[in-house]
């Protein structure tokens, strides 16, 4: 997700598994999905996404936080300060779904399924 042109990765970064770029608009859906099970802070969201996608989807934080902000702005998620056990009890901002957010998630999931099925069909056609 680093989109700086002309910057080659420094050699001390070990290449990880092939990564996929996210399709436009899918990030919101994925974030909402990670929050369905309960409140998470930013880093936990990105880790959950990596785990759930077997390290294929790696959301650059340059995209994650603006997206969180956007979702909060639209009223789909809500942010609250709490303490994070894995960070040794440091203050962390936890995001959780609002009622609107659940509805939005459901709607977007339906949309996505429609879309991906359609794409899959096209690709299967010979």
């Amino acid at each position, binding site marked *: 997700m680093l989109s*700086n042109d002309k*910057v080659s990765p420094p050699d*001390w970064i070990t290449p990880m598994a092939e990564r996929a770029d996210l399709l436009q608009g899918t990030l919101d859906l994925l974030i909402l999905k990670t929050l369905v099970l309960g409140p998470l802070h930013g880093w936990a969201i*990105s880790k959950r996404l990596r785990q759930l996608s077997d390290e294929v989807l790696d959301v650059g934080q*340059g995209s994650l*936080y603006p997206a969180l902000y*956007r979702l909060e702005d*639209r009223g789909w998620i809500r942010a609250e300060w709490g303490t994070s056990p894995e960070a040794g009890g440091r*203050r962390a*901002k936890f995001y959780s779904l609002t009622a609107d957010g659940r509805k939005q998630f459901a709607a977007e999931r339906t949309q996505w399924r429609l879309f991906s099925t359609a794409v899959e069909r096209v690709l299967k056609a010979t």
Partner: protein
Amino acid sequence: MHPAIRRTLRSIRAIAHRDTLEQELDEELRLHVALEAQELQRVHNLSPDDARRRALVAFGGIERYKEAHRDARGVRWLDELHQDVRYAARALGRSPTFTASAIAVLALGIGACTAVFSVVDAVVISHLPYPHDERLVQIYERNSPTNQWPLSVADFMAIAQWQRTFSDVGLLRQARAPVSTGGEPQRVSVGYATSGFFRALGVTPVVGRGLGAADDAPGAQPVAVVTHRFAVEHLGGDAAAVGRPVDVDGVAYTVVGVLDRRYTNLAGRTGEVWPDARLKPPERRGPFGLVVIARLKDGLTMDDAARDLARVSRREFVVWQASFQDRDATLVPVSLRRVMLGDAPKTIVLFSAAVVLVMLIAVANVAGLMLVRAAGRWREVSLRAVLGATRARIARLLVTESILLALAGAAAGIALGIIGVRVMRVVGPQVARLGEAHVHVRAILFAVGLAVVAGIIIGAYPVLHLARGGAGDGVLGGERSVGGTRSTHALRAAFVVAEFALALPLLAAAALLLNSFVRLQRVNPGFDPAHVFTVSVSLPSGRYADDTAISTYWTRALNNVRTVPGVVAAGVADQLPLSGGNLDANNFDLLDRPVPTGTAQPVTPWTVVTADYFTALGVRLLDGRMFTPSDTGGPNPVVIVSRAWAHKYFPDGTAVGRKMISGGCTTCPPSTVVGVVSDVTYTNLGDVPQGAYEPLTQGWGRTLALVVRTKGDPAAAIPGVSAALRSVEPSVTLADATPMAERFSASIADPRHAASLVAGFALVAALLAAIGIFGTLSYTVSMRRREIGVRLALGARRQAVTGMIVRRGMAHAALGAALGLAAALVATRWLTSKLFEVSPADPLTLGGVIAGLLLVALAASWAPARRAAAIDPAEAIRAELAG
């Protein structure tokens, strides 16, 4: 809640709690990086430092994210400006040496420019303090494009009577006269004026009334207007002054008005007291020397006035044909602005050119420094780019930094400029209206504008480099690979070359002016200024109304003066050498070679003297004889001429015995040349020193100059001589008692000031060029440490390394000097009129300047070269491998 309302509330909250939000955001991001690092450390077994570094990189675009966030808050631009300025200030604060030297260099340039701009503003741009000053003219008489002179009473009356193009015409006769308001009389500047003079200028007193047409009438009560300063110092203030009597040269005037405090002069002529000019009907066309000022009628042009005056001239010529035969002499209008500015524009152009060069060198210098600094900071800038700051943002940061630098330079420069204007007012050349120069709002705006332009130029290259996509490189290669790109090297060299090319013409101008000044100082004034002092002596008009009274006074006074201890000789003259422009001259016609009727007769400085004048001044007799007491005019008047006069009119060396008619007096007996004396410079040193003398036997003026030669220090004899002069007449007014040596040095004050000011600018320029070459070479040496280390390790001799660096510096300096020489050869031609006995392309002067500048370059190259030779090869190579 409606989304729009929510967003608005959020925006308000964002602005109100900007710092809190920013902190929260920061905290959130920090936590993210910390957790990521913790994870990396666990999974990949990395050291905490490595883990953190990787986490940061993986995070990507902190800056960009923050900005996206701020964008949403709608306060981005204000935020960023604030941030840019804070960041720039911090960055500058981190390198105090660079910052201080850049500010100092810019302050020098901007300060010099501000000072000169203030002077230009006061002298050239600002209007004269009279309404519609573009319609004011001074009228002269002109008989050739190069010869014009002020008018006579006859001229003034002819104009006043016959002109049709002016709404007002006024006359002014300037004098220094004894003025008394009850106590001891003092010699002050006095301007006898007609009421039309005030009307034409449009000047009315702030208190009381001005001179009216009724005051011009013969037999009117004598009245005068005084300056604010005179009223305060002598008459107890503006209001108290009106109605008080003032005695000017024995005539009692009543003060009727006081001028506004800003009028210390009128039409450029100084005066404390302005009595009404009581004109008597003229008996002949001359004598000349009066200022006539006129105001053009609405809608008429200078050409209209010139035609009108030409018509008046033809009409007047017929009236005075008996005493004035120069048919070519025509009345001409000259714009008062031009009269008052005189030579000022040329002097000002010289200074402006000098400061523009200094400013350009300063900018080139700081731009060079900035390049060095930019190379050192490439890593930092690249890191910001990698962390997601956009290019535009980084560019703005860099420009903000240079503009901030330039503005700091401007602040210091304005302070320097204020001091500079004060200095120029004190030591500057005699330029009209220089005394009115101050650093005004316009000058401050000018300085700030200059700073912004300088800032943009200085910051331009790093930004352009960035735009070409260089920003990312720094992280990878470190500063070595980017700081030393070829284009940067070339540009840095170009800056150094430019500095030398700009400094050379300035140094050349300064050297030529100084050379010319030294020659001027060595000019033989035709007399021996050591052990001589002069004093101006004025007798009160009441008791000294005729020749007999005055000559009796002088016979007794001179006898007393000669008995004062230390006095060797004393003589009297109506004017003194080195008097500048205000000099009595006379026309004459040689009997052997008369000029054709209707053409102008030759003119020469004409001094009336007693016999002892030559002895007192130390003027030598070359041929014939001096004046004797028997030279009493009458039927056989005599004159003595100077060597240059004799050489000009009688090159075969037979001046003695020749006869001439002087002053166009066809009925007078001709005068005979009885002697030739050494040349004395009456106007300014460097002018042609010809002249003629007439014995002082009749027509004694009430104000004469006494010349006293002493055995020892002339200043020590002044009190004794003054007492001797007063012992004959206690109410005599003495003024300007000065040793001749001081007059001598005052007469070359202008060229001295011009030369020293330009020399000052030139020294600054040379210093800046030296700093430029020093900085660049130092940087080169530090960048090429490894290469030099390898060379040394491979057996290169240290002298060779020193030579390599010095050669590099000298190559730039020599190229710059060559370009500068070409420019100087073109530019200094313009100086010709300011130079005395020096050609503007004087090879010795220019050669000396080039040698001097190269020597400076050599000195500036030496230190970095020594440092290069002192590099320890092992250490340099090790450092390189480690880095």
